[in-house]
């Protein structure tokens, strides 16, 4: 078996892995090695050829390839090493070892001072949301279709219905239209748009694509290729009103119905997973329940902006490097982050209160949309941080920054308050 030693091993060469690698190098780690299953670095951004990336980080609007291109350049300049076409099969954190398979290098055991999980996420499927009907060809997740169209030069269909008004769904509506397909409609279960308004304007309205809010696909028809779907409105409990279902002819259905952190390796390694985010529990160093293993990006929780992923991943890379160099091994005082009113989850899930002068940004999502609110972090009854927001909604991540020195009890609660209260 091929054996490799490195300071920091990073699983995944997408935006998270790249940012972590660059940061680990900057922190002083000597050998940083990315293990990437694809034939190139960049991860999912390779197929995200549309603009909209980098506004926060670079102050300009970049396409996916331009965004990751900048990180690849930095990584190569700083001497980050990488193995392509290499699929990680196992993470053994006790042995601080990662096993991966590769045609080029054979089966490889990578021994590392620390490991960073940056595997990203995968798409929820038609079966995952239990859409009844037949199982014909022509049903794709939006991301699979995007890969085929943007990377493999393959067109998936001519007449399309899209389920889900998340950004990927809407971006694929525009993409399919530009490539000559007819997008019949975008169907959204909720009574509000799941993605950004700008995408509704530029991807749907620009091309006259109807958006059916508070509707869902109740049945798929067709034995060989899909011939159409039944689309019905839903009541307040999201139950379809089947008697009002309408048949919509199409040869393709794209499902853009959510992303799930990809944690097969994490689970197998016995690392603690948070049931709400479906990702590993981490502290402000992005350190998991296995001290030598760090995690970042969509493998921890699904982000809306890659800019956030890069930032969070840089944190993971920095501390993974420190860990590998024998720092960050002092005693931690672990404080739990607790979700309060209208907060669905918090990330990081834990904070080490022993960090001196630490500033920790807690990212979170709300449960339901709300206007005129104040975001508050409390510790032992005291407010330790707060700020106003005009509007919060589940589709957009919020954050609040706390100072570790202000932590006085064993938990920090974050909640959304009505601003007037």
């Amino acid at each position, binding site marked *: 078996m091929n054996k490799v030693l490195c300071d920091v091993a990073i699983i995944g060469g997408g935006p998270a892995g790249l940012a972590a690698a660059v940061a680990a190098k900057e922190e002083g780690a000597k050998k940083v090695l990315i293990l990437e299953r694809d034939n190139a670095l960049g991860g999912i951004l390779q197929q995200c*050829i549309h603009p909209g990336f980098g506004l926060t980080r670079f102050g300009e609007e970049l396409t996916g390839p331009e965004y990751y291109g900048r990180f690849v350049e930095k990584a190569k300049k700083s001497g980050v090493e990488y193995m392509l076409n290499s699929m990680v099969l196992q993470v053994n954190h006790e042995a601080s070892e990662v096993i991966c398979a590769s045609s080029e290098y054979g089966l490889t055991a990578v021994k590392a001072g620390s490991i960073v999980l940056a595997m990203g996420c995968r798409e929820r499927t038609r079966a995952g949301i239990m859409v009844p009907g037949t199982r014909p060809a022509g049903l794709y997740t939006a991301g699979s279709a995007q890969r085929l169209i*943007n990377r493999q*030069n393959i067109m998936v269909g001519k007449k399309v219905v899209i389920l889900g008004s998340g950004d990927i769904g809407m971006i694929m509506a525009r993409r399919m239209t530009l490539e000559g397909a007819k997008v019949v409609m975008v169907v959204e279960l909720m009574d509000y748009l799941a993605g950004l308004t700008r995408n509704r304007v530029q991807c749907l309205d*620009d091309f006259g694509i109807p958006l059916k809010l508070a509707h869902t696909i109740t049945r798929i028809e067709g034995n060989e290729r899909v011939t159409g779907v039944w689309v019905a409105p839903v009541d307040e409990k999201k139950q379809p009103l089947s008697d009002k279902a309408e048949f919509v002819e199409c040869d393709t259905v794209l499902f853009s119905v959510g992303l799930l952190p990809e944690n097969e390796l994490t689970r197998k390694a016995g690392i603690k997973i948070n049931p709400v985010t479906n990702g590993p529990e981490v502290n402000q160093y992005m350190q998991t329940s296995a001290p030598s293993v760090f995690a970042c990006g969509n493998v921890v929780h699904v982000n809306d902006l890659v800019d956030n992923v890069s930032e969070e991943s840089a944190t993971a890379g920095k501390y993974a490097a420190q860990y590998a160099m024998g720092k960050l091994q002092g005693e931690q005082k672990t404080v739990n982050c607790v979700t309060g009113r209208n907060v669905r989850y918090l990330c990081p899930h834990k904070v080490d209160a022993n960090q001196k002068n630490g500033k920790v940004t807690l990212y979170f999502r709300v449960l339901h949309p709300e206007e005129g609110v104040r975001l508050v972090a409390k510790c032992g009854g005291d407010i330790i941080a707060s700020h106003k927001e005009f509007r919060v909604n589940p589709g957009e991540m919020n954050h609040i920054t706390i100072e570790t020195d202000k932590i006085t009890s064993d938990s920090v609660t974050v909640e959304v308050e009505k601003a007037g209260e």
Partner: protein
Amino acid sequence: MKKEIICTVCPRGCHIQVEGEGDNVISVEGNACKRGFTYASAEFSHPVRILTTTVKIKGASHDLLPVRSQSPLPKEKLFECMDIIRGAEATLPVKCGDVIIPDIASTGINIVATKNID
């Protein structure tokens, strides 16, 4: 002519009413901030969009080169531009930012590569 424009400058998404004649804006209502005013006026008279797509690579059947318009294109020209791009071919090697199609559809705007391919 009256037109409702959904502002995309920030997530607030104001529904802005713009009234005007031809390219001339007469009134703008419903915007919460100045940026909304600018956006809505421009969107009323000259809506523009960044176009992103792919270009065939000479000699390769699978690989595609991702490209973009260097700056936003007139919205009404998007399909015309797509027709031109469909017929184009890029020759390797390509660097991110290389001009693949200059002055597309006489807009003065170049279609450029968004990725390095050796």
